[in-house]
């Protein structure tokens, strides 16, 4: 039984703890994130959900004074205790941030940035990667005639999709989305949500969101965080219709947070 679960799991957390100096931000986190599913992380502000998602690609280590114990199993490796090759890890685990953050370069160069630095130099190969990535995020039709234009000319939603394309271009297996639609209008939000649903065929997706409707709409599993602890992890349907914990129910019915 455990073997089956292990095989399906992209990330397996075991008593993961994280401190910022004295502040205990993540407490004994233990659950699994399955491959090719959308896992939503919900919870009130300051519950540790953004911190948690940053541990999955070890971006959390950039914060001064951070300390981690426990385990995050990814590709048979414990990210916390083993000496992890950050370049490899972050190629495999792409991240999309709250606000679209393209580089001040052309659309083409933004998408080609990762592959180029990871060693792909041939123009035709890069062209192919860029086209494929932009098609994957449904941006190709809109930008194919202006690939040389600055990425800042795009709208907010387009910029966010460009950032997803940029992450996809390094051929990851997982995508981490940290409140990817919090700065977008409803129409752009819808397009990103549709995109996420499509992408889960090929990628494992972890998404932090403060929007419970969004979590309910597009995720397969939901984890509810509170004060640095995981209160409940369940299939999204179950968690929203019939939560096991009192705190979860209070939160999703809007009694706090």
């Amino acid at each position: 039984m455990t073997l089956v679960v292990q095989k399906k799991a992209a990330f397996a957390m075991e008593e993961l703890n994280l401190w910022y100096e004295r502040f205990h931000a993540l407490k004994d986190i233990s659950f699994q994130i399955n491959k090719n599913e959308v896992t939503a992380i919900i919870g009130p502000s300051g519950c540790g959900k953004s911190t948690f998602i940053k541990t999955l690609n070890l971006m959390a280590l950039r914060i001064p004074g951070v300390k981690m114990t426990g385990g995050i199993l990814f590709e048979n490796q414990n990210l916390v205790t083993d000496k992890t090759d950050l370049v490899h890890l972050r190629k495999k685990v792409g991240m999309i941030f709250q606000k679209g953050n393209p580089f001040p370069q052309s659309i083409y160069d933004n998408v080609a940035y990762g592959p180029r630095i990871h060693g792909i130099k041939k123009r035709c190969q890069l062209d192919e990667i860029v086209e494929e990535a932009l098609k994957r995020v449904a941006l190709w039709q809109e930008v194919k005639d202006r690939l040389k234009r600055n990425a800042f000319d795009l709208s907010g939603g387009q910029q966010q999709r460009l950032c997803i394309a940029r992450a996809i271009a390094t051929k990851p297996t997982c995508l981490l989305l940290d409140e990817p639609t919090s700065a977008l209008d409803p129409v752009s939000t819808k397009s990103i949500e549709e995109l996420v649903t499509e992408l889960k065929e090929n990628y494992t997706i972890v998404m932090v969101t403060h929007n419970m409707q969004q979590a309910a709409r597009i995720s397969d599993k939901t984890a509810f965080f509170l004060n640095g602890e995981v209160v409940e992890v369940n299939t999204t349907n179950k968690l929203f219709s019939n939560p096991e914990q009192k705190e979860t129910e209070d939160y999703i019915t809007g009694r706090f947070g």
Partner: protein
Amino acid sequence: MHAKVADKIATGILYVVAFLFITLLVSLFSYILFQGVPYISLDFLTSPSSTVQAGGGIRDQLFNSFYILFITMIITVPLGVCGGIYMAEYAKPGKVTNAIRTCIEMLASLPSIVVGMFGLLIFVNTTGWGYTIIGGALALTIFNIPVMVRVSEDAVRSVPQDQKEASLALGITKWHTIKTVILPAAFPGILTGAILASGRIFGEAAALLFTAGLSTPNLDYGNWNPFSASSPLNIFRPAETLAVHIWAVNTNGIMPDVQEIAAGSSAVLVLSVLLFNIIARVTGKRIQKKLTASK
């Protein structure tokens, strides 16, 4: 009502101050130009200076100024940018970093005449080079490195954090992120710093008096061998710059047209700095456009 009055007064004061500055600048500039421009001629720019007779030019001084500027920038910019990157990206906050920062600030406030004396001891006497262009350039480097480090550090720090994170999250190493994301974005700031430093170098006299010297050997502009004594490109020859020349003719010039030479040289100096700034900014914009694909 009270706040409105205060607002009006503050606005008024700021306008007056701005006006004063502009008037000062314009009058200074036009004074130098009106005094000097009539003496600028092709002959003035292309003939060597004379020590006794009237009619000397500033050919060598003008060349020396640009050449020393060039050599100094070749040393200063890479060192300054590296220092700035170190301070912004690698230095961990703590005692050592604070000590480095204090040293840089101390260095920035050294009077240039002190830098000149230091240069005399080290680059002229200890090395045994005598008065040389490279000695002058090194003295100017000492004097400009703090500005360059400071400006580069600020420029690197002002690059948005989210762009840096975007690059790191793609699995790009820190050095590659600095090279491909941070430096292009910091380029305008670094360029401004370099232009400011150039202006100071161009106008500097005190630090060069004791390092690059007050004389220039007979130069043969057809000789491009940088190791030959009469080549203008030789960095181990003494070189009087334009700013030093202005000081020298004013204090101990014995030619009859001292006033004219000083006025003409000043105008050339000011115009050169202006021209240099404009060219540097235009090229900078071009490079920036290429780096960022902006319209």
